[in-house]
């Protein structure tokens, strides 16, 4: 536990140092980044050690203001999430060193590092929290610090709007969580986690649903995901990387933790989670295909991956409910490993996107093109991230998806509803995988390959060294897990053994499968090598020339004729109507000698439309009628509070 506190202290010191030294810009950055990386390294080391060794969970209690105990506990599940938190935060800090390079905004940068440090600390505290109060406090700290990180570019209206949307969602989500906690407290009479398993089944269900809604809004489960596509494009890229890579997973952690604490026995929990996973997974990727802002697109991919994680967890819950140990172990391990994997490749992709935006000044993919020639390293690491997120071997995304598949296949031995849910999970995973590949061939193809579609893309060059290094580290990790997954899968299995059903289950019997995947991947690389040599050999001494792309007989092609991201995704998006609202404007060709024609299309999120029409507008209408309550008189406000307390005391 001491190392953990030392790490937290070091990270916090980095944040405070940044505030103190904001007058010397580069000193502030160096100090803050070094302290944060050092702290994360220490914390990550501790977490990895706990995960790989069979250590007893560390517990720390501190009674605080005589009101409530501040209680922390690091078990395997906490340690697993801590690894994600520390690894990604450290690499993103490294990235930020050259990403934040506007010396004129020294104060904002200092504040950014302060809240960045606070965010890391609060995330670490959430995953270690060992009672309701500690959890709630750390959760709020996490929400508020991330809110300040999002509004770094506060002078832009879009950023402020995004900040408001994020704030509303995060606070509304917190309300649900607190409601769930209040409900739990009323059932157990204590804020501790210990008694939660003994409450009645119906109470478990209500509490779980409340917490699922609250944590789901943080994780980005459809239809509670609306803040993601606003907040991520607005935030600086290293912040998007951490928020999308790690912070939304803290929502997943909340779901996992309370599932484990409540120990529900009904299959309904798993089924609800699977259905949410299917909706988030498929719609997330479909919306992503329709989006043309690279960071907004990546934000929707986070929604998709949260869907995959939920599928894994749901399969695990279903397995636990039906007593199928293999299914439970693989589902949970797959979901958890996907949490870690996604934190790596999603932050890698956000960093790539940040580099592109920094170099070209635009996030619109249809104005880019050919960047891999200008940014060779960023292009290649982005390619690695894209293959990983599409769940394809030889990278890490495949490993976790394989585990989820394997778990879901075990579910096919069940009967009735559980059988159907397993089928649905498998089919959705397959479709999500196919569509994710479609989306990322689009991103890589339109942004990095082909020819530049505008002058913005011509001027780009490789970003600063710290940014490149950060991306290289993450890409290397993605490849390592893809080729040698054994340790990582073992760690995920160990964390999944927090479920009582599989606590003593012999997981090692399944490790040969993982080794075989590793062997097959190595065979793949060997064959690639052999065929490359064969290819080199067959070109020896032959004439190889360069010329323009074959225009199919058309001799005057222009770069504007290239397929754009919009045209690439059009048929797929159309196919998923009416779940996606597509609005097209096309002037048409209606004269014999056609003049200028215009075409534009917009993809609207039906959850956003639904929320606007059914929640926001009625609420605003109602609240407008109550405007007179808000008059600005402090005395009367205090009167309200007194009145409210008196009324509550009478009724409760």
């Amino acid at each position: 536990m001491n190392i953990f506190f030392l790490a937290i202290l070091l990270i916090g010191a980095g944040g405070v140092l940044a505030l103190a030294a904001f007058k010397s810009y580069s000193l502030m950055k160096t100090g803050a980044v070094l302290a944060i990386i050092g702290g994360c390294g220490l914390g990550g080391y501790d977490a990895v050690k706990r995960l790989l060794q069979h250590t007893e969970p560390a517990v720390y209690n501190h009674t605080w203001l005589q009101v409530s105990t501040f209680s922390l506990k690091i078990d395997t599940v906490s340690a697993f999430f801590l690894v994600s938190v520390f690894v990604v935060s450290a690499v993103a800090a490294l990235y930020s060193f050259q990403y934040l390079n506007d010396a004129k905004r020294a104060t904002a940068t200092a504040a950014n590092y302060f809240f960045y440090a606070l965010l890391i600390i609060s995330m670490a505290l959430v995953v270690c929290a060992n009672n309701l109060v500690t959890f709630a406090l750390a959760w709020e700290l996490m929400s508020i610090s991330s809110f300040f990180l999002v509004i770094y570019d506060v002078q832009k209206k879009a950023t402020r709007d995004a900040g408001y949307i994020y704030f509303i969602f995060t606070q509304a989500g917190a309300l649900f969580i607190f409601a769930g906690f209040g409900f739990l407290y009323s059932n157990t009479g204590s804020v501790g986690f210990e008694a939660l398993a003994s409450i009645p089944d119906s109470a478990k269900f209500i509490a779980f649903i409340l917490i699922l809604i609250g944590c789901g809004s943080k994780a980005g489960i459809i239809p509670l995901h609306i803040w993601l596509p606003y907040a991520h494009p607005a935030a600086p890229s290293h912040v998007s990387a951490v928020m999308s890579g790690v912070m939304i997973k803290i929502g997943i952690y909340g779901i996992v933790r309370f599932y484990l604490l409540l120990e529900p026995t009904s299959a309904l929990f798993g089924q609800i989670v699977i259905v949410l996973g299917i909706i988030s997974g498929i719609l997330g990727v479909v919306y992503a295909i329709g989006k043309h802002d690279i960071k907004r697109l990546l934000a929707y991919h986070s929604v998709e991956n949260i869907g995959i994680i939920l599928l894994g967890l749901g399969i695990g819950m279903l397995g636990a409910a039906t007593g199928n140990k293999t299914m439970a172990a693989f589902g949970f391990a797959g979901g958890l490993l996907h949490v870690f994997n996604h934190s790596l490749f999603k932050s890698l992709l956000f960093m790539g996107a940040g580099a592109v935006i920094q170099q070209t000044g635009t996030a619109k993919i249809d104005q880019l093109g050919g960047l891999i020639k200008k940014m060779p390293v960023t292009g290649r690491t982005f390619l690695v991230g894209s293959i990983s997120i599409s769940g394809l071997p030889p990278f890490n995304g495949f490993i976790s998806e394989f585990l989820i598949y394997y778990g879901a296949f075990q579910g096919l031995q069940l009967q009735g509803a559980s059988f159907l849910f397993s089928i649905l999970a498998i089919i959705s995973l397959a479709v999500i995988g196919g569509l994710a590949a479609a989306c990322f061939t689009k991103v890589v193809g339109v942004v990095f390959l082909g020819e530049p579609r505008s002058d913005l893309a011509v001027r780009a060059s490789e970003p600063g060294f710290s940014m490149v290094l950060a991306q290289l580290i993450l890409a290397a990790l993605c490849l390592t897990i893809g080729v040698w997954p054994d340790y990582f899968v073992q760690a995920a299995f160990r964390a999944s053994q927090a479920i009582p059903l599989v606590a003593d289950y012999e997981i090692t019997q399944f490790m040969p499968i993982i080794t075989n995947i590793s062997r097959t991947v190595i065979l793949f690389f060997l064959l690639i090598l052999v065929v490359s040599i064969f290819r080199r050999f067959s070109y020896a001494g032959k004439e190889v020339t360069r010329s323009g792309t074959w225009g199919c007989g058309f001799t005057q092609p222009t770069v504007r004729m290239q397929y754009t991201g919009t045209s690439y995704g059009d048929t797929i998006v159309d196919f998923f109507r009416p779940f996606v609202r597509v609005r097209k404007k096309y002037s048409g060709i209606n004269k014999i000698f056609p003049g200028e024609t215009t075409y534009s299309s917009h993809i609207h999120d039906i959850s956003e439309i639904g929320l606007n029409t059914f929640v926001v507008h009625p609420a605003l209408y109602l609240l407008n009628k109550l405007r007179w309550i808000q008059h600005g008189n402090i005395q009367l406000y205090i009167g309200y509070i007194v009145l409210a307390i008196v009324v509550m005391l009478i009724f409760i």
Partner: protein
Amino acid sequence: MEFTFSFASLLLLLVVFSLAPLFMGVILKVKAFFGGKQGAPLLIKYYTLIKLLRKGSVYSTSTTFIFKLGPIVSFVTAFMLLLFFPFAGLSPVLSFHGDVIMLFYLLGLGRFFTVLAALDTASPFEGMGAAREVFFSALAEATIFIILVLFFRLSGGSLSFAEYFSGNQVVNLWSQSAALIILVLIALFIILLTENSRVPVDDPATHLELTMIHEVMILDHSGPDLALIEMGSFCKMLFYSAFITCMLYPFHTGIAVFNFIIFITIMTLLYAGIGLVESITARYKMDMVPNFILTSFALVFFATILTMELV
């Protein structure tokens, strides 16, 4: 669950692999017959390969290393499928429990690179083909995985090609669940046509780039690169045909030599069947293709639901 390796199977694999271009010749011969032509010789695909391997290449100035990597990855991934497939009842060269998931994802990797190589050329036509390819294959993925689901049910928990076609609970037309297998056969044939860009989904012989799917994506490839792509597509076709063939006849019993002869015969007939389909059907309109692929999904999904009662 062990990672097995078989040497005799490697020999068989090489034989079958070297026959792949001949099978493609069969399709062309059948199409020529229906067109009232004499057609190209049966060995035409070997000549094409040799011709391509002897040529040099012209690369577009727009392209990068991905364009050269595309053919290599697409060939290797397709070839790896064959390594794990039990031809003619012999155990596959390599096999492990769970390999099917890995192999179909490797195919996805091959497709990923083919598509990227197409987009690398900056050609609007190739972009068009790529967009179609990724969409249709995403739908086909659903059918493939529902087939895996059904096979898992029918064979009592199998997750590898070797397990499907050997052991106690095999999946083929002669097992007790033959009625369901018929549905799978139809669906798999549809997937074969889709994944290998055959009529009625795609027409490899058309001359208008606008109407192509797969062929338009490889427009800019030439020489040995194109040869690799061709060999990759032979492997893919061979795999899907062999998959269907193994469901048609119980190869896991009987004498090896006899099995091999039957295997080659059925394969030839199947390729001739593909030629027949290509000769008598017209290509679908592009927006019909998703319905065609989803039909295959519906068939197998129906079969899977039936297992809830039957098995």
